[in-house]
């Protein structure tokens, strides 16, 4: 059996040019804290906003 989750989450804010924005990168958005192939348990964090 398998579970597929699809959800909307923040991409993060674009840094200002003063902060060194070079295109593409974002800060403070949703970040995964898992690896492909990793074993997880119920309640473990998959990622953080």
């Amino acid at each position, binding site marked *: *059996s*398998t*579970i*597929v*989750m*699809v*959800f*909307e*989450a*923040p*991409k*993060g*804010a674009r840094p200002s040019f003063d902060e060194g924005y070079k295109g593409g990168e974002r800060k*403070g*958005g*949703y970040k*995964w804290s*898992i*690896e*492909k*192939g*990793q*074993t*997880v*348990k*119920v*309640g*473990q*964090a*998959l*990622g*953080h*906003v």
Partner: protein
Amino acid sequence: LGTALRNTKIEWKPIPIALGIAFLGGVQFYHVQRRERERVKELQEELEDQEMDGLGRPRDRRRIRPSEPWQVQVMTTLPLKAFSRLWGWFNSLDIPYYLRVPGFKLYSYLFNVKLDEVAEPDLHTYPNLAAFFYRELKQGARPSDPDPNAILSPADGKIVQYGLIEGGEVEQVKGVTYSLDALLGTKTPSTSGTTTPQPSRSDSLGSRTNDGQTEEDNVRADEEFAQVNGIHYTLKDVLSGSANKDKKLDVETPDQSTTPVASSEAEVRADLALAEASTSWWAPTTEKTATALHYCVIYLAPGDYHRFHSPVAWVVERRRHFAGELFSVHPYLVKTLPGLFTLNERVVLLGRWRWGFFSYTPVGATNVGSIKINFDKELRTNSLITDTAADAAAEESWQRGEQFSGFVEATYEGASKVLGGHALKRGEEMGGFQLG
């Protein structure tokens, strides 16, 4: 010849530059010509393949080409759902009392089940393998991550794939992709005169990476979070309770839900209120953070705990039951059979959380075909009756000349008048997979 070679004087002289360049140019020209000839030949072959035969079919269809490994081809010819039901029936037969403990211990040894985590230590109490498979865990065996901004793992398992969705397509494994529409189903037309809150974002899946659209949609979600009796409420209204006070939510609404109001509703509202306080979600539009669609696929092995829990605090607005096939979802088959998750029987739960759209899809497999949703008593998966009804609906659609959507939909709008769906708190048990 030998004398000539020995006695001939060798005199080295530099080649004129122009001659050298001409020679190298000639060699390069020859290579380019040969490469071009090969490319034209390949293109001609490709064009010949695409030409139609006399019956209007592409010519290459007549060639016999193995499209999938033979294991997959054999599997597609088998009555997998019948096998699954037989497997379920077999595993629901009671095991003789004295064979239960050694039997379950053997199963645990083979599939790496940790018996010290099982809620019921006396294994005699499980009458059969199906009951043991759907076992509960001890209180506190799976503590939830304390960070309120974390998305929790809904089940024990292995991460197959995760990432960002771009262009409306989910990468499955090794570059194989399938569209969100195929996985979750397309948008259903809204019914006028009902109180069903339509998920305003399901129609725009796949375009979530555009900042402008996303922010616009966020504003729309903010403005139209709940709709009861034709009145639109903002989430802010709902959370502050002003909706109840000012907008007459006590108007009798026909209860079309499958279960009574969730006991966790108040807690979900509290979680959403916490989000309001801790993030800039309610900040002016210009300061809002853009959102994107993310996905995660978790595979549950046979020995894993097979109940699943809510990964976040969210509101389930509707469910879609796709009565598909029941192929194995072993990572090998996931790799070899493209779009496997869009073929198998699955229950798609659609709703929203504090950042917008949220969907949760348990996908069945041959050995674990039955999907149970605790708050949906009407749902029947891996059932001959359901399959027959789905076949009849498909046939009816075909007769009318319409395309069958492939799913049967139910809404939970009556479950919570305020939140417009069934509220689930973080970590709450939602349901599970059962044998057969």
